[in-house]
């Protein structure tokens, strides 16, 4: 029944590791997004993906890469994790770029 789901909810890992966060939406939306929320609760767009077109926020390091196996999924891969990557990552989806619905978030802690 969950509209936008993410796994895992929590992820604790060492610096330098590679990790992935999965996102699935069952709303039939055509666009999916990844956001990063820092410790001050500021939400910032990282990527949007619509019908095979990926739009990247230029401030996002290329260690981050989204991968979409199909329209319902947009997974986030992060290589060579750094301390500054610690944050809560939210997946979201929308239809035609209108209202975005958010997943529950994944809290990533890099040690």
């Amino acid at each position, binding site marked *: 029944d969950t509209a*936008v789901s993410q796994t895992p909810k929590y992820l604790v890992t060492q610096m330098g590791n590679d990790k992935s966060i999965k996102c699935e939406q069952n709303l039939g939306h055509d*666009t999916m*997004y990844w*956001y990063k929320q820092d410790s*001050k*609760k*500021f*939400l*910032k*767009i*990282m*990527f*949007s993906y*619509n019908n095979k077109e990926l*739009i*990247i*926020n*230029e*401030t996002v390091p290329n260690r981050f890469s989204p991968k979409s196996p199909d329209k319902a999924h947009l997974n986030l891969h992060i290589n060579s994790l750094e301390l500054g990557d610690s944050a809560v990552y*939210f997946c*979201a989806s929308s239809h035609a*770029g*209108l*209202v*975005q*619905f*958010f*997943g*529950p*978030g994944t809290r990533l802690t890099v040690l």
Partner: protein
Amino acid sequence: EDKVVQSPLSLVVHEGDTVTLNCSYEVTNFRSLLWYKQEKKAPTFLFMLTSSGIEKKSGRLSSILDKKELFSILNITATQTGDSAIYLCAVVGTGGGADGLTFGKGTHLIIQP
């Protein structure tokens, strides 16, 4: 680059009070302005505003947009402790990067019993 400024950043009031949260913005090719409420987890959608002067209302919450002056307000009347949350304002335009929402820093609202 799109920009959203919310005020106040934090607000503490007593139950029953009415609050007004402010959001001003600069956006390239404005499409819409959205309000979200964030408690412990994900932001949950409250309103989407696209036209000036038309109030959107849901229970004790209401919001209005002024596209000429580039701001929006969110009103909450007869506040309850369950209204305690971070209220986020966001805009959709073409200058936000990655076609996503550009968020303000939020207003942290605390309702005291």
